[in-house]
């Protein structure tokens, strides 16, 4: 029988069993993860999650100096939760030329180690355009890693080029693609998915694309969009699918839960946005449940920098990067600024009692900031 270390009270049985498993480094079941969602004991969740992350990452908290580029907001899918996408010809629709994309890349600050490129499913651009973009970027910026194209875009490319997923990915890799971001996962469960993004590829298909990517040595991330119409069971089932695939491939680097931003979207909710408690619980439980993922990322641009910082005590070990020109979340009314300087990110991490580590896309350490007053 374990005793709460702080209150000296015996712990109620179900959570007690889960807690023992976590501290014995045993995997928890989906049912147990759901149980945790119904608990309001955020301190115990935080401690378990902190234990799980420190086992993998010590006190390190990673960030990356990257540049986001969104080549187009024109998208054939028009998901209901998305405030970014436009139809072709619609007011506000845009499409960058190759020249403009290169221009944006050139305007990136010195020290950027990654281009992060995602966009809509454009009705007319041929697959060759994307290959050309990768080649052109790689030619000019051979040292900068390109993380680009969600599984949804990859599947779309494979359809417009009539190539299988694997072949599509091989050609992209050959042209310079370094890794895949984790977007487009939303919630895999079909009933939820059909309600919020019926035109988007199924959860199974998303996982197939990732499996193909991992099979040719491309690493990727995985996201989960929560706080719209899904229940805790849907979140856990989503994470379960990811955990199973990760057991097979080991190709996922980070899991990134994304709180839904309802403004300018076609989904109505009781609350304007997810609550702080829900964000912290979701991050902590994902850290506890996804024992085969090395990293849990809080995307500060969606969570807000204050909550992202607090989440570092709830299992998070990555707060993404210095993002210039983020368009997708801001279209949905996110109030965060589009950029935190590197100094600000280091300060946030240090004030949370952690060690800031600048990483590259593949989590190679570029620089650790171990001392209280690093000069940067």
């Amino acid at each position, binding site marked *: 029988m374990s005793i709460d270390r*702080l*209150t*000296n009270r015996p712990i109620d049985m179900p959570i007690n069993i889960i807690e023992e498993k976590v501290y014995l480094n045993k995997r928890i079941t989906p049912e147990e993860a759901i149980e945790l969602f119904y608990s*309001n004991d*955020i*301190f115990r969740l*935080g*401690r378990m999650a*902190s234990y799980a992350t420190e086992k993998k990452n010590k006190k390190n908290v990673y960030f990356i100096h990257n540049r986001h580029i969104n080549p187009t907001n024109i998208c054939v899918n028009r998901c209901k939760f998305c405030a970014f996408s436009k139809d072709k010809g619609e007011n506000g629709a845009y499409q960058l030329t190759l020249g403009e994309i290169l221009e944006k890349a050139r305007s990136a600050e010195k020290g950027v180690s990654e281009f992060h490129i995602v966009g809509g499913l454009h009705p007319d651009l041929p697959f060759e355009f994307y290959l050309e973009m990768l080649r052109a970027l790689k030619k000019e910026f051979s040292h900068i890693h390109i993380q680009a194209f969600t599984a949804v875009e990859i599947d779309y490319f494979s359809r417009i080029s009539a190539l299988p997923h694997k072949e599509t990915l091989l050609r992209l890799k050959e042209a310079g693609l370094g890794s895949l971001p984790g977007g487009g996962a939303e919630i895999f469960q079909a009933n939820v998915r059909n309600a919020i993004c019926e035109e988007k590829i199924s959860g199974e298909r998303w996982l197939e694309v990732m499996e193909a990517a991992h099979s040719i040595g491309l690493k990727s991330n995985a996201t989960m969009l929560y706080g719209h119409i899904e229940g805790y069971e849907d979140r856990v089932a989503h994470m379960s699918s990811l955990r199973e695939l990760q057991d097979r491939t080991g190709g996922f680097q980070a899991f990134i839960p994304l709180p839904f931003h309802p403004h300018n979207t076609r989904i109505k909710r*009781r*609350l*304007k*946005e*997810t*609550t*702080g*408690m*829900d*964000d*912290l619980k979701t991050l902590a439980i994902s850290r506890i449940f996804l024992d085969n993922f090395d990293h849990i990322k809080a995307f500060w641009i969606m*969570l*807000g*920098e*204050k*909550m992202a*910082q*607090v989440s*570092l*005590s709830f299992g998070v070990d990555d707060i993404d990067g210095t993002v210039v020109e983020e368009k997708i979340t801001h279209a949905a009314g996110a109030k965060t600024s589009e950029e935190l300087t590197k*100094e*600000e990110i280091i*300060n*946030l991490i240090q*004030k*949370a*009692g952690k060690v800031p580590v600048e990483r590259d896309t593949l989590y190679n350490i570029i620089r650790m900031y171990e001392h209280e007053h690093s000069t940067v």
Partner: protein
Amino acid sequence: MNIALYNNTIDSIIDKVKSSHRISEEDALILFKEADLLTLGELADEMRKRLHPDNMVTFVVDRNINYTNICINRCKFCAFYRDRDDKEAYIISEDEIYKKIQEAIDLDATQILLQGGLHPELDITYFEGLFKKIKNRFNIHLHALSPPEINYIARQAGLTIKEALIKLKAAGLDSIPGGGAEILIDRVRNLISPRKIKSAEWAEVMLEAHRLGIPTTATMMFGSIETPEDIIGHLSLIRDMQDKASGFTAFIPWSFQPGNTEIGSKRVKGHGSYFYAATGVDYLKILALSRIFLDNFKNIQASWVTQGAKLAQAALRFGANDMGSTMLEENVVAAAGVSFRISKDELIAIIKDAGFMPAQRNTVYQIMKVFN
């Protein structure tokens, strides 16, 4: 200090808190510097539960009316004040005040927070007249005039603080907001608000008010240039005051909002040093420490207006038992470029979501309505 000794110290402080013993300033400093966020949170949460076993989280419906932004103090942390000849300077008319109060009452408000700058021409006669007229027209609690304003009004009129308070109370003043406290350490005040009343004068106004049966709140604005020792000195001063007269209804810590302020801009641009606003972790730690240290304060307010709804909700697990006010109107924080808005329904929803029972209260923490 060796590790074993240090652990004993932290453990013994934790034991003190858990067994409802008052912690010293030294204890507080050790907790603040050494305890991690979750430890502070757990201790504060346990203390909150002890003081509020009903699991209730309260809020008040009110409107902030800022009668003028003209202020002779011109504090360096303030984005709200204007000089008299500034084109954005204003004084609102009495009729406008009445209109704002009526609108607030129509939205279930029970309180008006009336505060403003130190305006040389608004004297005690003006406020006595205004308060009487408000009280004649409306059934509303008047939470008005922070200590710098009361001190200024009294001095202008050649009255003692006590005399001024007696007059204002007779005219309709029900309670006093705890603003203008900033950090109640004069070294800090001299740097960030050199023309504002000193800490002893702030304390004098509050103690006189408490002795006259006028309840007040106490605030703290952290995150400018103070040290951890200053924060604990501030908490210690108000804890001592509360021991003397028990007149504080609540404590409200919030963080300096550097946007559009003299300190914010100078520190950002000057001397190669970078000004970092207080972070979310700073806020939760200071909130939790306040809950732990101020054992004679029943209520600690979360500040959604400066921290946002998400962090304010999390604050309910870090010592806060009150969400403050719905603030149908707020101007001072907004002037610093921070504009979180929240409706009564949202406030109720986030309190419930955190596992608490929401209740609307009045200014003196009587429950008006419970939202099950």
